[in-house]
């Protein structure tokens, strides 16, 4: 049985990963605002949220691939959000709610595979759960329920593409490098 305990070192690492991703896609913030301004005149303003969602959901799957134990994805997202809360992010404590939702969203793919697979399959599954859970949350929070069915489908599609590309493909490419550098010891499949 793989370890399920979290030591101090793991906790620091999880929080660091969350914050590092935040620093790297700080550019994502501009991207988000830029997309929003660009898309709003076409009635697609909320789509910026969907298009950048993959970036916000990267830390979780990557933490899971790195530490390979229950809760890693959740902590990766949540501790990162807790860090950002104090690093001058405009959302303050509201970060924690998004971090919580995204943590659960990205954890589920690994839960459904019994925390035994850390490969393409579980990663793809996680991009699906992440898409559905975060979309479900926006259904209420961002009023997606009030949009036309057509727009919702479009947003759902955009969100899946973004999450699949960043939280799926890119995370897999990064973890491939980590595997080859012997940082991730074995990928159990």
């Amino acid at each position, binding site marked *: 049985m793989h370890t399920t305990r979290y030591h101090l070192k793991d906790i620091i*690492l999880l929080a660091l990963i969350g914050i590092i991703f935040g620093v790297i896609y700080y550019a994502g913030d501009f991207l988000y605002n830029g997309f929003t301004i660009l898309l709003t005149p076409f009635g697609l303003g909320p789509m910026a949220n969907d298009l950048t969602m993959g970036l916000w959901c990267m830390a979780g799957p990557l933490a899971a691939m790195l530490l390979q134990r229950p809760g890693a994805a959740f902590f990766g997202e949540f501790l990162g959000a807790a860090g950002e809360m104090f690093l001058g992010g405009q959302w303050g404590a509201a970060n924690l709610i998004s971090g919580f939702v995204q943590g659960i969203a990205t954890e589920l793919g690994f839960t459904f595979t019994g925390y035994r697979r850390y490969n393409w399959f579980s990663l793809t599954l996680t991009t699906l759960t992440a898409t559905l859970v975060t979309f479900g949350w926006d259904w209420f929070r*961002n009023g997606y329920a*009030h949009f036309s069915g057509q727009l919702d489908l479009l947003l759902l599609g955009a969100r899946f593409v973004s999450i699949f590309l960043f939280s799926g493909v890119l995370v897999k490419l990064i973890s*491939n490098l980590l595997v080859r550098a012997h940082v991730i010891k074995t990928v159990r499949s």
Partner: protein
Amino acid sequence: MNPSLKLFLVLIISVEVSFTSKLTVNLLLVAAGLILLLWTRPSGLTLTHLLLIPAIPAGALALTVGAFTPAHDWFFAAVLASRVYVYVLLGSAVTRTTPPLTLARSLEQNCHLPAKFAYGTLAAINLLPRIIRAVKTIKAAGQMRGVTLSFWSPRLYFKAILSAISWADQLAQAMESHGFVEDQPRSQAQVIPLTGRDWALGASALLLVQLALVALP
């Protein structure tokens, strides 16, 4: 007010607001958040930042709902826009009145959060300047080899994660040599009180929001 209680209160209210559509309640909460925010005497720049940047998502949501949905529901558009401001203003009201260490101490003492989570996260937060410098260094190392690394480049993340692993290792060792032992009781330099007054304040604030949600249109 006790930091943990304050945090949970704001989180509960934020979640509640997400599932209800009462414009007046939202506006009241925005007003409350604004007062709390002004109480912390923010600089002009911070204030502008906090008020203007959320205007982008808020405006986009409102326009989409109001102008582009079949129902042209401008009332709901206003609800959504004000909701964004509830998150931002209440959220920053917490962070601006609570230093990270005080919140960590409160979570450790009042909520019995294991110290390793509280201090591990704080240690990571304090590395921010180094993280920013490391990302710059990785990008420069790339430029010097004719490679431009951006947020879609696996190698940028790969290198950053390698650094993070070594920092986490060194920081954990340093904390341990500063006497930290996981799951061992610690004493408290500063006791964060959780008084009956805190509970009363939290409960009445929550009750007030519930009443408002039921009573107001």
